[in-house]
């Protein structure tokens, strides 16, 4: 691992660790109440009392960012897990089975993918009504077709490989071959993809909240804070800077850490993906 790669991995780990820590601390302690504001301290710029300033209701930005971290981390983790479980099962089944099973599943998956992630999520949110778990379900379902496409592609190319054919030829059953030979070789592309959808999920949660269709107020979310910041852009730009910076630093950490994990897990990809 080169010096650059090593620095990136450490930085990524540090950023992700910091966001997770912030989220955990935010569950038990925030400097001020994230929901109750001091109306006498509206639009206070960053100060010793309010480190990152206050918003139009005099609520502490730092406290709201800490509370929002918990929402973002939880929603992203659970929606990616849901997408991975659903997508891998569907994709590997299609790719490895081939034939009409593959054709049937592929048509359904392709049709689901004809709805861009955010759009499908919006539709599901409309039916479920806005809530934290609604977002998890919506994003998990929205990302599972892309996961299944990657898993299918990997399984499809592996099906023709000598070691898979050899496994079948030596009398091992389909399920054994899938778990012993196909799935382990799908891990690298899936993990690469998982890190990217983990970032996307975090981004999509923010975007949904930004549009007012995600986690409902009064809960603090980074996207919701960014949306509110637009009303007071000329007098309180810190309201836009800090939530956006939190989203960016989290995504940066996830991307850097994802690259490092990929390098470690898949020697063939070492140095290929930046």
């Amino acid at each position, binding site marked *: 691992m*080169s010096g650059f790669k090593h620095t990136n991995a450490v930085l990524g780990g540090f950023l992700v660790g910091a966001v997770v820590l912030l989220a955990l601390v935010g569950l038990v302690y925030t400097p001020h109440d994230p929901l109750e504001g001091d109306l006498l301290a509206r639009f206070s710029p960053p100060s010793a009392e309010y480190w990152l300033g206050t918003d139009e209701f005099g609520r502490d930005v730092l406290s709201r960012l800490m509370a929002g971290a918990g929402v973002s981390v939880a929603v992203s983790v659970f929606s990616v897990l849901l997408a991975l479980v659903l997508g891998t099962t569907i994709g590997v089944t299609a790719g490895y089975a081939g034939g009409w099973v593959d054709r049937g599943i592929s048509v359904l998956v392709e*049709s689901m993918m*004809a709805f861009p992630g955010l759009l499908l999520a919006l539709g599901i949110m409309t039916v479920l009504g806005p809530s934290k778990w609604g977002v998890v379900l919506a994003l998990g379902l929205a990302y599972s077709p892309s996961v299944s496409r990657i898993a299918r592609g990997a399984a499809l190319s592996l099906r023709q490989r000598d070691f898979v054919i050899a496994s079948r030829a030596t009398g091992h059953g389909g399920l054994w071959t899938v778990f012993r030979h196909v799935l382990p070789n799908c891990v690298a592309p899936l993990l690469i993809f998982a890190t990217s959808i983990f970032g996307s999920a975090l981004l999509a949660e923010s*975007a949904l909240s930004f*549009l007012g269709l995600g986690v409902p107020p009064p809960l603090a979310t980074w996207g919701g804070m*960014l949306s509110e910041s637009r009303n007071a852009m000329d007098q309180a730009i810190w309201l836009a800077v800090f939530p956006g910076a939190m989203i960016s630093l989290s995504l*940066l950490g996830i*991307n850097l850490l994802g690259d490092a994990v990929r390098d470690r897990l898949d020697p063939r990809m070492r*140095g290929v993906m*930046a």
Partner: protein
Amino acid sequence: MLGYLLKRTAAAVPTVIVVTVLVFAMIRAIPGDPASLMLGDIDNPALLANMRHALGLDRPVGEQFMIWVGHALQGDLGMSIARREPVTHLVLTHFAVTAQVVLTATLLACLVAVPAGMVAAWRQNRRADTAIVSTSILFVSMPSFWVGILLIWLFGVKLNWLPVYGFESVLQGGLGAAKYLVLPVFAIVLTEIAAITRMMRASTIETLRLEYVAHARAKGLPEKRVMLRHVLPNSFGPTLTVIGLMLGHLLSGAAVIETVFTLPGIGRLLVESIYARDYPVVQGCLLFIALLYVAVNLVVDLLYPLFDPRVKLQ
């Protein structure tokens, strides 16, 4: 080649059918009766029954679906409840705005990102590579709506150089209207560049390891020719897929960036119609967006063999 073309196009037909059914089903799954919504606060059962009959809501679901598809095939997606305009007209005019922004942004992003990705791969692990990789990781981590807000603050509010909201079509307003495009396009380009650069770099590195590249170099071809003639076509395939997916997502999912810049695009039309429970518009937008996405992916698939002839054989 013609066989591949026909096969690919035919493969898209079932997708189109399933998409149409899904859109119809999704709208039916949303709670609430469109007829009572249209009447608002008026509490009159006879009027409600009339309205339901006029909208065809009193017929069996299967018949409603066939009528809707029949009209859609003739380009009639119904009338907007909130705006009292034909949905087809609304969808097309709003889409024109999105298309101008997105196509400009994608083209600019490709012009920067494809060469950048190739240079990074060519100079792998050297200073130029490190610089390009670091920049693209940084950019890919910045949400376009945040970049958009900061751009508005800097160039609109502080410096007062560019308009912060509104839109005028370049087709009608000429170059003067381009000033409305600058900030949204820039916000999209910054994030898209990163994704394309990363993909281009990865596939170029893969290609550079192949023996035919070593052979091309060994027979004394100049490096420029090796990169442009031998490496570029083979490494562009995967990138093309990424660009296609990205284009589809942008054309349809630009709701957030359109909200930031108050652009009257199709993403915003959809979100506003969801708020307003304007079902015919939501339905029309969903159908249009989904079919467009299918079309973009089909075009990418059809272009693929031009870069990688092996694809045809599969």
